[in-house]
């Protein structure tokens, strides 16, 4: 049996224990289903509405992925720019921190005014939420290249561009990927918040719209099924980026090599 499959057992067993405990606990406590549906009811509902859930998750997933790619590209370039000039870094970085602390729910209605209703606003929401961890981590990586190696490059009369391309960027890749891993889950949250405020739903909506309509219809099991679906989507993103990180670094960085050896 492969190692990755063996790694799945502990969380799955814990999930099973938690699910069974919730099922029994809710029954024993007499919590009515309209307050908190049993996990079995949530799974049955998810199965019954699998098509609607699949379509909604597909739309949300695509928007989150587009936003994540945008923030990976934009965040990476921004971090690169900030790393090149200390003055620019000192000027821009506090604003980045400020930007990160602005709650997305507060600025989401403004996005409608900036880009109108529809998928662009949802993608923008995913991008804004997932940008900061990529910038912060990538910048940290770019600035923390081994000083001894920087000195070595300089002794060899390497240009700043060469130091950047051959030393700083490669050494920043692990931090960039760490940022990307954090941003992956956030991009799904950003997309759902964007859907709450700015999606169009005449042709069906994303998971945010499904959650909202299920609340209005008082379909509590479907609300929980949609929440479960969005959690799975975030988890899928996280695992996918983790896999990408492993593939990219397994021959380059000792941490990944060690982790792959278990």
């Amino acid at each position, binding site marked *: 049996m492969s190692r990755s499959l063996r790694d799945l057992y502990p969380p799955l067993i814990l999930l099973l224990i938690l699910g069974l405990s919730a099922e029994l606990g809710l029954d024993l406590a007499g*919590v009515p289903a*309209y*307050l908190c549906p049993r996990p079995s009811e949530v799974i049955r509902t998810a199965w019954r509405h699998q098509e609607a859930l699949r379509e909604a998750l597909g739309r949300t997933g695509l928007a989150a992925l587009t936003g994540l790619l945008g923030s990976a590209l934009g965040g990476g370039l921004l971090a690169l720019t900030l790393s090149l000039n200390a003055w620019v870094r000192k000027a821009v970085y506090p604003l980045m921190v400020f930007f990160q602390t602005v709650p997305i729910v507060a600025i989401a*209605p403004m996005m409608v005014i900036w880009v109108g209703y529809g998928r662009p606003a949802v993608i923008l929401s995913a991008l804004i939420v997932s940008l900061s961890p990529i910038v912060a981590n990538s910048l940290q990586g770019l600035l923390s290249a081994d000083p001894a190696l920087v000195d070595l490059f300089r002794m060899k009369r390497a240009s700043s561009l060469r130091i950047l391309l051959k030393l700083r960027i490669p050494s920043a890749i692990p931090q960039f990927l760490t940022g990307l891993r954090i941003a992956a889950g956030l991009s799904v949250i950003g997309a759902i918040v964007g859907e709450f405020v700015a999606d169009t739903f*005449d042709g069906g909506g994303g998971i945010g719209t499904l959650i909202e309509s299920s609340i209005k*219809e008082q379909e509590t099991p479907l609300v929980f099924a949609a929440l479960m679906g969005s959690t799975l989507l975030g988890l899928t993103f996280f695992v996918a980026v983790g896999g990408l990180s492993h593939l990219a670094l397994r021959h380059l960085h000792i941490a990944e090599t060690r982790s792959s050896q278990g």
Partner: protein
Amino acid sequence: MNRWFFVVGLLTLILTTGCDSNKEHESGQLRIQFDWVPEPEFGGYYAAELMGLFSARNLAVDLRPGAAGTPVIQMVASGQAELGVAGADDLLIAKSHGIDVVPVFAAFHDCPLGLMIHAERKINGVEDLFKNGTLAMTPGSAPTRFLEKRYGYHGVKLVPYGNNLATFMSDPLFGQQCFITSEPVAAERGGVKVRVILFKDLGYNPYAGVLFTRRAFLEKHPDEIRTLVAAVKEGWLAYQSDPEPAIARMMSLNSTMSLETFRTATQIQQDYLWPQAGGHETFGTMEASRWDSLSKTLNELGMTSAPTAIGSLP
């Protein structure tokens, strides 16, 4: 974010509830849970409180303001409050999900909800609203489903309804659902002339601002509920004849709304409170036939699995 608040509210409810929907109200207090902040739509309750109409009847009433997404029906059903205020359609949908609620008093005889559009927008008929432009509605709500069934959304861009009027103000082809005393007043105050097409004029007219309780509670405390309803009714009549004291009280609890807006909303809602026939004597009473008709409509819209009877009205 109504939806996050709803989910968080529901989870909090699960963690805090005693899980026994039939449990006695421990302190003898009647907690009335509203679905929104203190506004003129609850004026009668605050008037009754101020005038001592509850205490004069030996009732200890606690008026509890709500917020966006407050799960009022679930709170009443789980014993977090003895009574709540919600729309008739939401109560019937709750019934179809096994929550045994019973309405005891309807403040709004006519539904004060509708569609708000720019007054200058040229339309030949209501159906034109669904052919172009943008319409902000709550996804999954009964009015959204009703309009879809009656007119179909052919060409209009459907977007989620929010509390932000900015898009409406700037886009002449933008329409949105509204509460007659709220968004139209705010839009006009912002300088945009509006036209409101009421859902009741389109054939959808559920009672609104319905005071309800859980049936088990009503069966245990019928006299208490009857006395409370009499006090609430008297409070509403007092609010309509002199709203100023209750407005001052509500303003102290909700400072986001101006005095002028409170007064304007109070004036506007009068047309929706009183039944056209019967006058003030029949204020607050409900007709079983209207509940039956609403139940049939909701079933046809797919909001309930079968026509749901609200049960005998007190």
